């Protein structure tokens, strides 16, 4: 039996790779044989995140502001010039504000949508171009269980993650004919710098409530990355437009 879950000979781009789920995706994709292009706003932070990790082939680290259409257009030009074909893209860049409705205004909403949603769509647009796409292609947006079920003080974040889930379905239909599959992964709470910051913010009682809602406990970034590798691989060749929930049972209640 061939190895359906290998990423050998595939070039995968990952946004938000310097920490948390994005970093874990990068490590697991590399271990599965992929060549990597890692995007970050701060290249030194990105490179230092992988100082300890032994890559068979060193990733291409690219510094760019993914919220800037100009920067993303420039990335397209670079890829075309270097004749690099993209097999997969993981949009893991994201930010989260834990704020009640009354404190959720233009600044918070705009920043959340720009980073969590718009940048992912700019990058998907770039990589789906004929000159850049590989024959078979897979995009994976890291959404969240908050895009499916509600949480107090989480309006901006959950709205952006819901937008990724619904946007994924339209993109999946639009890009199916060019053999680009588009899916979401929706994790519940995993141990990342973002979640640690949130636990600090919401306090012990609310933290305990969240922990109690995960039958399999809080996840690790690798738990999510494994599902991402599956969706990037040929093992998921007939899957598009879905939202794969990876939540330790959080939403089974």
């Amino acid at each position, binding site marked *: 039996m061939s190895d359906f879950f290998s990423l050998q000979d595939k070039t995968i781009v990952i946004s938000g790779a310097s920490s948390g789920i994005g970093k874990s995706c990068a490590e697991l994709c590399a271990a599965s044989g992929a060549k990597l292009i890692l995007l970050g706003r701060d290249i030194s932070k990105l490179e230092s995140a992988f100082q300890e990790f032994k890559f068979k082939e060193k990733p291409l680290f690219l510094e760019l502001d993914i919220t800037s259409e100009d920067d993303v257009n420039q990335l397209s030009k670079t890829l075309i010039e270097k004749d690099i074909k993209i097999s997969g893209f993981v949009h893991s860049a994201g930010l989260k504000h*834990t*704020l*009640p409705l*009354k*404190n959720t205004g233009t600044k918070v909403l705009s920043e959340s949508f720009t980073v969590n949603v718009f940048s992912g769509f700019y990058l998907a647009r770039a990589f789906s171009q004929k000159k850049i796409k590989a024959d078979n292609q897979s995009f994976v947006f890291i959404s969240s269980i908050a895009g499916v079920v509600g949480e*107090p*003080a989480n309006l901006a974040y959950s709205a952006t993650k819901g937008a990724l889930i619904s946007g994924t379905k339209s993109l999946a239909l639009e890009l199916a004919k060019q053999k680009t599959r588009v899916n979401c992964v929706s994790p519940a709470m995993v141990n990342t710098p973002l979640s640690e910051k949130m636990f*600090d*913010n*919401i*306090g012990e*009682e*609310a933290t305990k409530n969240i922990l109690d809602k995960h039958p399999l406990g809080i996840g690790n970034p690798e738990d999510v990355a494994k599902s991402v590798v599956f969706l990037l691989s040929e093992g998921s060749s007939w899957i598009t437009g879905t939202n794969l929930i990876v939540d330790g049972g959080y939403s089974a209640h």
Partner: protein
Amino acid sequence: MNTQTFLEKLQDELEEDNTLTLETKFKELENYDSMSVLSLIAFIDESFDKSLDTKHFKDISTVQELMELIGSENFED
């Protein structure tokens, strides 16, 4: 910011009908809950550029104590 303005803004932020004083205890306020704490954190961040988290609120009970946490240098009187 002077104390009076702070008390008024705080009252507005917490959506309280009654005037607040330095001695007002947060837990005795009608609308005070975990959302209020998040709201106060955002208010203090915006008004004083000071980042607090919910842990800080465990140790304070009155408005006076909140002002001490924010720092006397941030108040004109």
